[in-house]
């Protein structure tokens, strides 16, 4: 807990917290404006109203979330490298592994808040604009959980990458490359492509149904454990030289 509080204090003036909150608000605003402007077109798509609400708006929201995660992960480690602050941390009686985990928690908690803001907007849209009785809160909560868990591999991966490079442009470049290659591979039916964390995050956005894909959930959970575990192990075993 103490390490988490210390990490939070380090985030002052970095913009990490504002960025993730901002993307939550922006995503919510996008959903509202898009649905109001394209209401007739969207509701005429031959899909169930809940599928329209969840899948047709998620694409853009997911891209915003993805870039927010990439940038937040880059910034949260950039402050450690910028003034050699990480070196000082290694010379202090602090557990570097718990420092890494606290950074992971900060981005995760802020991302949950962003997802919550976006889904509050979807609840409001669903209750206001969908045909009477078509809105299903359980389906929305299930899809929100599904989209959250499929986003976490990118978050774990980007934090791991950011912790490895002193120059912020490397992880940022890897993030952009991940996004572009993910976009190219997301529609593929080959299950092996799911090892690419960005493909996993894109899966709910390219699906036509709001029903979660169990295989994608299992792969997501495995990737979260793998990337987070690798980051924690590296922070424990690798020395600052």
């Amino acid at each position, binding site marked *: 807990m103490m390490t988490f509080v210390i990490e939070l*204090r380090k985030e002052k*003036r970095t913009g990490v917290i504002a960025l993730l909150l901002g993307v939550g608000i922006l995503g919510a605003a996008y959903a509202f404006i898009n649905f109001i402007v394209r209401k007739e077109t969207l509701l005429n798509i031959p899909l169930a109203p809940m599928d329209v609400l969840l899948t047709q708006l998620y694409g853009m929201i997911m891209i915003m979330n993805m870039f927010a995660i990439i940038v937040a992960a880059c910034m949260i480690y950039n402050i450690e490298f910028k003034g050699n602050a990480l070196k000082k941390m290694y010379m202090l009686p602090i557990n570097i592994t718990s420092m890494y985990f606290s950074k992971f928690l900060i981005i995760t908690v802020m991302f949950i808040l962003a997802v919550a803001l976006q889904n509050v907007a979807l609840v409001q849209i669903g209750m206001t604009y969908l045909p009477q009785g078509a809105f299903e809160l359980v389906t929305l909560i299930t899809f929100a959980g599904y989209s959250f868990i499929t986003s976490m591999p990118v978050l774990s991966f980007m934090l791991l990458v950011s912790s490895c490079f002193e120059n912020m442009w490397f992880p940022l470049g890897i993030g952009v490359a991940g996004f572009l290659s993910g976009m190219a591979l997301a529609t593929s039916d080959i299950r092996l492509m799911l090892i690419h964390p960005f493909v996993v995050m894109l899966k709910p956005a390219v699906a036509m149904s709001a029903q979660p894909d169990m295989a994608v959930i299992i792969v997501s959970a495995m990737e979260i454990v793998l990337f987070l575990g690798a980051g924690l192990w590296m922070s424990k075993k690798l020395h600052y030289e």
Partner: protein
Amino acid sequence: MNYIITTEQLTKKYKNFISVNKVSLHIRKGSIYGFLGPNGAGKSTTMKILLGLTVPTKGSFTINGKQFPDDRLKILKEIGSFIESPSFYSNLTGRENLEIIRRILGLKKNSVEDALELVGLTEFGDRLAKKYSLGMKQRLGLAGALLGRPPILILDEPTNGLDPSGIHEIRNLIKSLPALYDCTILISSHMLSEIELIADDIGILNHGRILFEGTLDELRQNALQSGYAAENLEEVFLSMVEKDNTARKQRTKL
């Protein structure tokens, strides 16, 4: 003798380069130990090993009876350190930077002001660290090392980047610390003239090897025996290093 830091045959080898070669140091409790050597002699690497930043290839060391890696947190709690260049969060003010360190060390709130005052940075405490001059960053780094007045200080060329009056001020501060609160200081420099003014004991390092370890008086005696003018220790130091370099070259030729 009551040694607080001892190293045994400490060695650090990189692929085809030995940075620290069988270094055995003996640092007395309550003393100022000057660690002297030209650039690249291995002073910083030795200090990094003592702080757990680098793992030694061979050898061992104890700090206040404790050993890495088992007692890492206990050791680091007792050491204030400053290695190579100041380390700070550029998005935070000087005071906020020290506050982070204070929380990690679990110290009282007033220790931040105490450290700022010791290094003469009180009035600039609320300025962002990235806007500090090099000298101010150096002072901030020193404040971070002095925070909570730790019993052991490891300072790697702490006066780098300071102007002459700053060097004088920091030198006097370092010299006064053992009397002020009973601490032991390991300080490195490549200038004997600077170390001579503050150190009780001296260790001279060249190409990773210890050439001399002892008190300043012993160094003077050593100089007289070798035919150097004892009052000019800088010359003694340079001659020692040069002699060692010549011997190394001859060994390489053979």
